[in-house]
């Protein structure tokens, strides 16, 4: 069991290092997802399945998704802005 914990710790540390050193946010998001997996595994070996569960949800899925969404929005601001800008055409028309 101790060996398992040690392996999980090493794995987590390695993933964390990788995630911190990955410069491109899109790739970093994927590595973060891997980090989430490693953390969840570590938590399970540390007998914390509930934390592992929430970590699976948050760390593996939500956070990388948020980052990827941000990357998308940032890289393509026009497309990202589009839904944010309703610019109601009716009002403009009646002005003219």
């Amino acid at each position, binding site marked *: 069991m101790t060996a398992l914990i040690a392996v999980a710790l090493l794995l987590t540390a390695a993933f964390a290092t990788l995630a911190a050193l990955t410069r*491109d946010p899109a*790739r970093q998001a994927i590595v973060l*997802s891997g980090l989430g*997996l490693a953390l*969840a595994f570590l938590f*399970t070996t540390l007998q914390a399945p509930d934390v592992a569960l929430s970590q699976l949800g948050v760390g*593996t899925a939500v956070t990388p*998704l948020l980052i990827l969404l941000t990357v998308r929005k940032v890289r393509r601001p026009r497309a990202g802005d589009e839904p944010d800008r309703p610019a109601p055409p009716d009002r403009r028309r009646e002005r003219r």
Partner: protein
Amino acid sequence: MNAWLAAAAVDTAVLAPCLWRCALGPPEERLAAVALAGPVVTVLFLLLSQGLSRPSYGDLALVLAVLAPAGTLVFTRLLAGEPHGDAADEGTG
């Protein structure tokens, strides 16, 4: 330490190539690495739940088995059309 835990320890080794491949290459290759890590960790959860004789840990594996492919699919959707590389990075506007 029973057979299940030993198997888990052995299977952890599979995560090393995932880590290795996760460190290199464009996003889609990294995504493949994470997609491989998903089932592996699922298996690990299963083995742990058996090895620690806590059946309730199996729920984790269930959640992950549902979540990992879904996440991977969403990732592929988001990464599609993403010009990868830093060349297309920020700086315009």
